[in-house]
């Protein structure tokens, strides 16, 4: 058959497995059909750069989106974005081993909680597979089914529960103005709904060691921090941890009671919530101000620990500036690459 009308192609993965896939689809989709879930936080639009894998042969010309996201060295090494590579001819790929741990999961929504006026907690009971191994701090890709004339899409949500609870996952989703995923979660997702997601993904997790750590979060950035702290409690990790969480007013401060209780059970842990615009009725006696300013006030002149950040890009940028001023180098500052 001439190359131009090939209807299927052979894909060889890590020189040990091969399968045939229909042409005319993205490599990301072809791998997903074979239950190989490559990380993706942009729904395959060539925006996040998370789906990079090594293609040894068979990929067509590099696309402009790949040019924008891959360095020259990466391109020379055969790195490609799986969502941008079209399956047209036989392909030979090398995929990092840890990508094989990600799978597709089916689950049931067993609880929905309004954590704040604009953050909704979702509890999922996994049905197939019944459990998921993950590291505290990682995220999943939640399938948003088509609604209101929209299309099927995926959104990344951090897991808010600890790995000791592998059959029940908790998520915390923030309402975004006219957001496709968050509107689905707030308006359309019902108790007992069957949902699908893939994961786990990401390398945002507490690095081993006993260095002091500061965690800084705002909004739905609470989710991975909660998972990390509950995991420390479960594994009885002894490490000096300060958790700075910023919210607007008292009503936006989620899980206050839970975190204060955690201060009693997790040795060397201190929770420092801060409100940027407390209401008189809040009767707030805690920290006031932007969380980056609160962090600056609390950290010593030179901080030799690690920092874990999760929240809006503006918050992350402001905290990184503070951390640099306190002598914390980039190799000790962690946050989700795509966030």
């Amino acid at each position, binding site marked *: 058959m001439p190359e131009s009308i090939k209807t299927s192609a052979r894909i060889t993965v890590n020189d040990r497995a091969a399968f045939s896939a229909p042409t005319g689809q993205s490599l990301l989709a072809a791998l997903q059909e074979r239950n190989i879930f490559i990380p993706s*936080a*942009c729904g395959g*639009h*060539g*925006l*996040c750069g998370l789906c990079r894998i090594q293609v040894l042969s068979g990929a067509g010309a590099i696309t*402009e*989106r790949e040019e*924008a996201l891959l360095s020259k060295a990466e391109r020379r090494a055969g790195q490609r974005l799986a969502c941008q590579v079209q399956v047209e001819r036989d392909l030979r790929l090398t995929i990092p081993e840890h990508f094989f741990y990600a799978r597709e999961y089916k689950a049931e929504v067993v609880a929905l909680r309004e954590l704040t006026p604009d953050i909704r907690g979702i509890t999922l009971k996994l049905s197939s597979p019944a459990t998921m191994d993950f590291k505290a701090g990682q995220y999943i890709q939640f399938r948003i089914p*088509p609604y209101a*004339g*929209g*299309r099927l899409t995926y*959104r*990344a949500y951090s897991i808010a529960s600890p790995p000791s609870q592998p059959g029940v996952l908790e998520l915390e989703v*923030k309402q*975004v*103005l*006219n*957001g496709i995923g968050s509107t689905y979660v707030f308006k359309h997702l019902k108790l007992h709904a069957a949902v699908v997601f893939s994961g786990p993904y990401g390398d945002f997790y507490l690095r081993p060691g006993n260095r002091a750590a500061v965690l800084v979060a*705002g*909004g*739905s950035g609470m989710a991975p921090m909660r998972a990390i702290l509950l995991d420390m409690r479960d594994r009885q990790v002894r490490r000096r941890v300060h958790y700075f969480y*910023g919210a*607007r007013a008292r009503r936006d401060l989620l899980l206050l009671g839970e975190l204060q209780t955690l201060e009693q059970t997790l040795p060397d842990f201190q929770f420092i919530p801060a409100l*940027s*615009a407390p209401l008189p009725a809040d009767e707030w006696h805690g920290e006031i101000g*932007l*969380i*980056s300013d609160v962090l600056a006030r609390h950290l010593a002149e030179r901080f030799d620990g690690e920092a874990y950040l999760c929240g*809006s*890009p*503006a*918050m992350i940028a*402001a905290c990184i500036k503070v951390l640099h001023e306190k002598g914390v180098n980039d190799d000790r500052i962690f946050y*989700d690459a*795509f*966030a």
Partner: protein
Amino acid sequence: MKKADSLATIEKTLQNDPATRRAFLGSDKRSLAEILRADAAIVRRRGLNHARIAQRMLALRQAGWSGQGEVVAVPPHFAVKVEAERGYLACPFGDEGAVAKVNTTVRNLARGLEITFSNLNIHLIAAHRFYEGRGAKFRLDPGQLIETLAISRRVSGAASGRHR
């Protein structure tokens, strides 16, 4: 950097993709070319151009950025709130690169007006002269935008920067 697709290609993409059409053209029955023409006429009548408008939007967003989601007072009489979420989205015109999910709300305290625009709106206006169709959730009426942001013909010394 890839150049945006031609108007005809975009029109075709929008026709073939009802979800994108609804997101950017809303319930507007006019063609993309007609929408662009009508909005361009409004902007021209005010003696302005799209670059000027996008620049003003960008300057106000920059001014509000340090608030990390809190309202920032911007002289002479604006209250600006910038809410940035995690994640990026693509330009429907097929431009290269990613646009951050950032929404800026500007309240003009002197005129009692308020408007919210996203980073994608700034990009669409700067790069494509596109204010979106009627009924689209992020449609910006150029007249209302100009009024609320108090954009005048005089050069305002708007900050330059990236809209993405």
